[in-house]
Every structure is written in structure tokens, then in C-alpha cells.
């Protein structure tokens, strides 16, 4: 914790939450996006529709799910549909306004890699793969991305195009016949980035309180462009911080247990 009274992670999640609107229909990626989306729902956007790819539509979990298919997502959802219906009617059918993704590797045009580090056929590290992301990236109205800044994560050239952002920039997306906006917002632990209207390169438009340009550059693998006027992101207010911390505390308590009952047997033999 810095002397600011909040951590860079908390700032990231809260800045991401603020970007969501009450009438958004948001396809939620697991991890950082899930926290941001639920903070939005618990603060300024109580009626936001959160969709997880397991088929849960309009879900309102009390704790953050460990997987995208936890039972609580279904228990609290308006409806739960099958996976093919999710991808055909709801995502491909253009019902989703925001696709919210995390990234293992990201480039300056918002292209994301979660497939392999190294060569595809002889990978150095085999990552889980794209899951829903390739079509979330092309079928959602627009894409928000949230991730912590590191040189390993924000790279000049990604090893694999798991999901397409703005390609090599400019009109690349349009030229491929993609009609949606693609990545319009990147929220990191240090800054808020938006694509340049022409080149589509992510540009820093706001830095979080206390963050310097040097810090943003040191943790990014490409030469960072800053907007003519870089704002300071408003610090989290008390309600935002309390909501996030309470959510994380509930989540931690729930995940450290093994459910509602007590684990009497230990887990070594459970399989």
C-alpha cells in the first residue's frame, strides 16, 4: 500500500469499473475484468448485464467466481443458456456492447496473445488458448482490456494473434470486414489508454495519481505515446474502495474454504 491509501491494483480495477455504464451488456473475461465488472455493478451501474461464457446472462454473484462457470453465477442469473446459444444468439447476434478481456501478451494495437509464447508448433510456453476471445473480440460492440503493466506483458510484437485488435493499425480492422469498434480502452495499474483516432495506437490519456511518465515507459515494451493533454485519474473514493475490498474479502473467504461445509478430510486423496 502506498501512502495514497490504495494500491495500483485497486486503482486499476476501480478505473476499469468506472468505464462501464448501467445499460451495458458486458461479456466478462475471467480475472481482472471480473472484479471490475462486479465493482461497477455494486456501485454506479446496478442494472448492468454481466454475461459469462458459461451461459449465465445477467448474473450478480456475491463473490468473484474462481472459474467462469461457478454455480453462483447460475444461481443469481436472469437466465442460463447453453454454450452454443451463448455464442450464436447472444455474442454473434450482436447483443453484447462491451467485451472485457485480460491479456497475457498485448501489443500497442490491442492485439492479444493467450495461446503460446514462442513458436506455435514448438512453443516455449503453451498457454491455455483463446477460449471465447477470438469471437468476443470481433463480435462485441467494443473491447475494453485491463492488465498490469510489465515488459513481458506489453510487448512490441506478440507471438500469436489469439484475438484481433486493430491489427497493424489504421483501417486494418475495417479492411478485414470487421464491423465492430475493437479495443477502445486499456486500463492498466498505471494509466488509462485510448487508441489514436487515426493510427489506432494505444495512447496514454490519463495517469493514475502519483504515477510518472517514466514509470509508464519502464513497464511497457514499446515506445509509449502520450496524449497532448494527459489527465490525472481521479483517486478511488471511499465507496469504491470499500466495495472492492469487501468483494475481495468475501471472495477470499469463499475460495479458501471448499464450499459451504467444512473440509474434514483434507484434500490429498480427493480427485
Amino acid at each position, binding site marked *: 500500500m502506498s501512502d495514497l491509501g490504495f494500491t495500483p491494483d485497486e486503482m486499476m480495477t476501480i478505473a476499469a469499473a468506472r468505464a462501464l455504464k448501467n445499460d451495458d451488456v458486458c461479456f466478462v473475461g475471467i480475472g481482472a475484468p471480473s472484479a471490475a465488472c462486479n465493482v461497477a455493478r455494486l456501485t454506479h451501474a446496478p442494472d448492468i448485464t454481466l454475461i459469462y461464457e458459461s451461459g449465465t446472462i445477467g448474473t450478480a454473484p456475491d463473490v468473484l467466481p*474462481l472459474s*467462469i462457470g461457478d454455480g453462483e453465477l447460475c444461481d443469481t442469473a436472469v437466465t442460463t443458456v447453453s454454450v452454443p446459444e451463448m455464442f450464436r444468439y447472444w455474442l*454473434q447476434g450482436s447483443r453484447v456492447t462491451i467485451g472485457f478481456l485480460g491479456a497475457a501478451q498485448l501489443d500497442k494495437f490491442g492485439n492479444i496473445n493467450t495461446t503460446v509464447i514462442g513458436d506455435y508448433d514448438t512453443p516455449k510456453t503453451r498457454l*491455455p488458448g*483463446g477460449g471465447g476471445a477470438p469471437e468476443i473480440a470481433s463480435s462485441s460492440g467494443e473491447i475494453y482490456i485491463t492488465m498490469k503493466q510489465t515488459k513481458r506483458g506489453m510487448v512490441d510484437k506478440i507471438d500469436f494473434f489469439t484475438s484481433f485488435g486493430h491489427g497493424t493499425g489504421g483501417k486494418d480492422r475495417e479492411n478485414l470486414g470487421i464491423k465492430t469498434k475493437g479495443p477502445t480502452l486499456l486500463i492498466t495499474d498505471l494509466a488509462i489508454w485510448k487508441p489514436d483516432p487515426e493510427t489506432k495506437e494505444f495512447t496514454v490519456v490519463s495517469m493514475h495519481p502519483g504515477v510518472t511518465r517514466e514509470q509508464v515507459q519502464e513497464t511497457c515494451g514499446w515506445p509509449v505515446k502520450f496524449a497532448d493533454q494527459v489527465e490525472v485519474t481521479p483517486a478511488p473514493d471511499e465507496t469504491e474502495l470499500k466495495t472492492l475490498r469487501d468483494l475481495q474479502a468475501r471472495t477470499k473467504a469463499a475460495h479458501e474454504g471448499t464450499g459451504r461445509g467444512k473440509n474434514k478430510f483434507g484434500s490429498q*486423496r480427493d480427485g
Partner: protein
Amino acid sequence: MAKFQDLKTAVAENLHDGDMVAFEGFTHLIPHAAAHEAIRQGRKDLTLVRMTPDVIYDQMIGMGMAKKLVFSYAGNPGVGLLRRLRDAVENGWPNRPEVEEHSHAAMANAYEAGASGLPCAIFRGYLGAGLEQVNPNIKRVACPFTGEMLAAVPSVRPDVTFIHAQKADRKGNVLVEGIIGIQKEAVLAAKRAVVTVEEIVENFDDVHPNACILPRWTVTAICEVPGGAHPSYAHGYYDRDNKSYLDWDKIAAERNSFQAWMQDNVLNAGPQDFAGRVEHLRSAK
């Protein structure tokens, strides 16, 4: 017509070396007991299909049963990477399975096409995505009416699909509730389908008229295996054992610890052991 069988017999009769097999379940109702029985029976040269290969696929891959993998997201849900899958793909241990990788949208459409009796699935997908360059089974087809270029992938038609469900009735109809995932399509797409269930009830007279039910004549075998989804969960029966998923990351990290765990918990165990594993996870109904 569905036969009521013990799991050992159902696996022996329905899963053969060289088969294309799906053990489906989308983060819920994962058929762990059935996969463990397949491991005990030592099936090999399998083409393992699954949208979200997780712990059971890590186990089958680590035991050398996989000739090929067809999938769209291979991870330990909420935890991270699959260590045994990585060892197989990166280092060839115990073998290097062929990989056919898709997106969720593609796999979901491919199962649906399989269930629909179609040779391929057509959808708007893979736009700008790298998989199209590395997977020759992703092709483009023009809409005959608008000219829009759409993605096409072959349908998935497993030789056999295994799923876990909440209930069967005495006649052999199967009820799936909660996050229903891709189970219905995976059963209808397959030549044979084996379903493990939490319990067998007298009838389904009290279920909702639009409930997800697989009629008995779409199912080959039903096996009553309480707890058979553990450490996954069964909605209305028991919660997900998140700790087991976290523990798996450590167990699977080394070949030795993996093999020792498999010996103790799978090879020397049986379907009857699952009920005890969920006792502490049972939720009030």
C-alpha cells in the same frame, strides 16, 4: 435405449482404443468418475475432444492416452495452466499428441452441427485470428445470399460422449440442470453416449416443462455414481471443490508427484470412492 450399468461395464462396452471421445462439461458436471474409469482400463490412441480440457484431460494426457487433442481452452479453471498438457506439448512426455485448436464459438458450433447431422458448422468467426493460419480445419465459405465470408469448421461427431448429470428416471431419461454447457449437443452428436448421474429417481413428473432432458433413446448407458463430478460440482447436490483445483497445480507440476497421485487416487480407487469425496461439499437442498 438406455441400459443401466455399472461404470466399469459401460466404459468397457463403449470406449475403445483409437476412439474419438468427448468427456464434456463446461466448468460444471465434469465427468471425473468416467474419465478415471477410462484411465483404469488403460485406453489408448484416443482423440480427446473437449471445449475446455481441464484436470481430467491433464490426467489422461499425462497417462499417455491421447493421440490427438481437439479443444478451445486448455487450462485449470481459475488456477492457470495444465502442467501435464504442457509437458506433453512442449517436451513430448509421455508422448506428443497432435493438436487441433479452435475457439469456443467454433467448438460450440461444431458440436451443434454434429447434433444436427451436418458435415460442417458455419459462423462469423476467426476474423484476424491466428488459429486460421495454423489449423487447416478452419476454412472460409461465402454466404450464397450476401457474399459475406464466414468461417467453416468440420462438425464434431465423437464415437462416444461421456457426461455427468443430476438425475435419471427409472426409464432412463436424463435431466441436466444449471450450467448446461454443451452436454446436450455432445450427446446428440455422438454415436454412443454414457451418462453418470447423481441419483436415479422414480420419474420426472415434477420438473419444469422446458427442462433440459435427454430422452432415454438418445443415451446408451446410465451409471449411478454419486459424487461422480468431483472436484467439479453438481448444481443442487454439492459445491465445487476449489481447493482440489489449486492442489492439482502442485501435484501435476512434477512427473513423479503426478504418477504417485494417479496411483493412489485413480488406479487404486473406484467409482464408489466419489461419494465420500463430496460429503463435506454437499449443499442444503
